[in-house]
C-alpha cells in the first residue's frame, strides 16, 4: 500500500559523513528504513553508524544492491553528487539539498533521465511510506499508515497537513515532498498516475503554491484521467508579485501563477480546495467513505 518505496527498499546516503547526512541517517534507521550504506568520496572503506562507506554510488549499488540514494551534500557539490548517481544503476535519487543552481539541476536531471533514474527534489523533505520506509528529513511520528496519498511542494506545510490528516484518523499511503525549486525531477503530474494505479490509495492531497503552472497541468490530468478524488491546498494568496517567497520557485511572475488563479483552475477542474488547513481533512473525509 504505497508508491515508490516500501519496507523492502534499500537506501544509501550520499553525504553520510556530513552533519545533516549522519544525523538524518540515524533518524531514518531509527524509523526502520533499510539504510545499507553511504557515499562520501575519499572515505570509501570506512564505516559510520555500522554502515559501509563507498567512494561512489556505482560502488555502493554494486556492493549493497541499493534501490534508492538520498542526497544531503551541500549545494556546491550537489551537481557532482547527482552526476555520480546518474553514473550508477540506482533506481531513484532523492535530493534534499537546498540552493542548487538551476542549470546544475537541469544538467543532472538530463543525465539521470537518460539512464531512467527518477529524481525527487531537489530542495525537498523527501518521501515516506508510513510504518515502512522514511527517506528524508520529515518527522516520523506525525505520520500514520493508511490510504491517503500526499504530494507537496513544501516541507513544514506538508507536516502540518499530514498531522491534520493523522489527527482525523486519515492515514497515509505515501507522502512525497517534490521540492520548492523551479526545476524539480518529479512534478505533480509525474506522480499522480502512480497514486491512481496504487490499489491502496483512495484519495490524494495536492499541496501547491505560487509560481509556475504545475498545479494547473495536474488539474487537467485529474479532470480527464483520474478516477480517485484529489483535494487541493494552495499557499501564497497573500504573496506580493515579483518577490521570491523563500523557495526559489515560489515567485509570482504573471497573473497565471498566483494562488488565486490556481485555486480557480483547480476548482474548475472539480478539485475541491481547502482554504485553511483544518478543511483538508474534512474535504478528504467527505470524498472517502
Amino acid at each position, binding site marked *: 500500500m504505497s508508491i515508490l518505496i516500501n519496507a523492502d527498499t534499500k537506501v544509501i546516503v550520499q553525504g553520510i559523513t556530513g552533519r545533516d547526512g549522519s544525523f538524518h541517517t540515524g533518524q531514518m534507521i531509527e524509523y526502520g528504513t533499510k539504510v545499507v550504506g553511504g557515499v562520501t568520496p575519499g572515505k570509501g572503506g570506512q564505516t559510520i553508524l555500522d554502515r559501509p562507506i563507498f567512494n561512489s554510488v556505482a560502488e555502493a549499488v554494486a556492493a549493497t544492491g541499493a534501490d534508492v540514494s538520498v542526497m544531503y551534500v551541500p549545494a556546491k557539490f550537489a551537481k557532482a553528487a547527482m552526476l555520480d548517481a546518474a553514473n550508477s544503476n540506482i533506481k531513484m535519487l532523492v535530493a534534499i539539498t537546498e540552493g542548487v543552481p538551476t*542549470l546544475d539541476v537541469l544538467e543532472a536531471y538530463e543525465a539521470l533521465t537518460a539512464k531512467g533514474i527518477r529524481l525527487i527534489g531537489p530542495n525537498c523533505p523527501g518521501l515516506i511510506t508510513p510504518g515502512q520506509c522514511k527517506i528524508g528529513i520529515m518527522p516520523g511520528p506525525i505520520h500514520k499508515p493508511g490510504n491517503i496519498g500526499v504530494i507537496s511542494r513544501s516541507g513544514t506545510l506538508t507536516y502540518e497537513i499530514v498531522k491534520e490528516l493523522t489527527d482525523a484518523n486519515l492515514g497515509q499511503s505515501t507522502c512525497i515532498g517534490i521540492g520548492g525549486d523551479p526545476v524539480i525531477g518529479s512534478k505533480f503530474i509525474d506522480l499522480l498516475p502512480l497514486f491512481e494505479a496504487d490499489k491502496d490509495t483512495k484519495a490524494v492531497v495536492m499541496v501547491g503554491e505560487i509560481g509556475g503552472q504545475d498545479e494547473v497541468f495536474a488539474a487537467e490530468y485529474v479532470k480527464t484521467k483520474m478516477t480517485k478524488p484529489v483535494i487541493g491546498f494552495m*499557499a501564497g494568496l497573500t504573496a506580493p508579485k515579483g518577490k521570491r517567497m523563500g523557495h526559489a520557485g515560489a515567485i509570482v511572475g504573471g497573473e497565471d501563477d498566483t494562488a488565486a488563479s490556481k485555486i480557480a483552475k483547480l476548482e474548475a477542474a472539480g478539485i475541491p480546495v481547502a482554504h485553511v488547513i483544518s478543511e483538508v481533512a474534512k474535504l478528504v473525509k467527505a470524498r472517502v467513505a
Partner: protein
Amino acid sequence: MKIHEYQAKELFRACGIPTPDGAVATTLAEAQAAAQKLGLPIVIKAQVHVGGRGKAGGVKVVTDPKQVVPVAEKILALTIKDLPVRKVLVTPAANIAKEVYLSILLDRGARKVVFIGCADGGVEIEETAKTAPEKILRLECSAKELANLPKDKLLPFAGKLFSDASQANQAADIMAKMGKLFLEKDCSLVEINPLIVDDKGQVIALDAKVLLDDNALYRHPELVTLRDMDSEDADELNAKEVGLSFIRLEGSIGCMVNGAGLAMATMDTIKHFGGAPANFLDVGGSSDPKKVVAAFKYILKDPAIKVILINIFGGITRCDDIARGILASLKELTVPVPIVIRLIGTNEAEGRALLKGTDLIPAETLEQGATKAAAIGAKS
C-alpha cells in the same frame, strides 16, 4: 537577481553580442557630456527594474541639443511603478529597418532552456503569447549543448525571424552567444527586445534584459557587485545574509515561521481570519537561537506592528532552540507588542517548558494562533 539594461549590455559586449555604445548618467552634467560624446540623435532610457518604461515616459529620443538637459531632468525625476529613476542610459538613436523579439529562458514546465522568438519586435511578448500564440517561435535546448550550440540547430529558427540570409546568419551567431552567456553567468533569462536590423543591414541588440539565478551567485562574485542597492530593500538583503528569508508587507501582524510554504500558509490564514500580515519570514531549517533574535529585530523595525505570531512546526528545527531564541530576544530587545506562539513538533515539550512564566499567548493550532493574532491586530 535583476540587473540594469546598461549592465546587461556590458555583458553582451564582453561576449560579442553587438549592441550600441552608451554611457550611464546619474546627473544632468553626465547626461549632457554623454550626448556630446555620442552625437545626436540620442535615446535617453530610465534604468529601473520594471517593465513598461517606455509607456511610463522613461524612454525618449532627443534630436535637439537644447532638449538633452530638460529631457534627462524629466526622466530622472520619474518614479515608475514605485521605483524612483536614479540612472539613465544615454545611447545613440538607431535607424531601425526591422525589429524582432528574441530571448532565451528557463522553461520550468518543460524542464528545458528555450529560445523564444517573435517576428513582431518591441511588443509585450506575454500579450502576444495570449492573443496570437501562433506567432511565438520556440526552440528547446539541453543544458549540455548551451556551451556550444551548433549553427545548424539555430539557423532554421533565425531564418523564421529574418528572411534575409545574411541577417539570419547574424541572428544565429547572436543566439549561440546568448546560449553561452546564459550558461556561463547562470542566467534565468536573456532577453533582447527589440533585436533590430539597422540601415546598414547589421543585426543589433537595441535593448538588453538579464535575470540571474540567485542560487548560483556564489560562483559569480563579479555579478553580485552589479546589484542595485537603491532598488532593493536593505533589510531583505541583510536578512538573507544571516539565513532568513524576509519580505516586508503592509499589515500589522508580524510573522515568524519555519519553512517557506508554511510561512505563506500562515500569512494566508491570518488574512482568512481578518488580519493583515506585516511580513513573510522563514527562519529556515536550522535551529540557531541567534536567528530568532535577528528575526525579531527585522520584524520590530516596522512601527505598524501590533502583534507577532510565531508558528513553528519542528522537524529539523527544534522547538527548544526556538524557545531559547525567544528568551534571548526578550532579554536583549524591547518587545513592545504581544506575542502569540504556536510551538509543535521536535522537542515541543522542552520548548514549552522553557517558555513557562513568560507572558506569551499560547495557541494549539495555526488557526487558533491566527485568530488570536488577528483579534489583537484589529484593536487600535
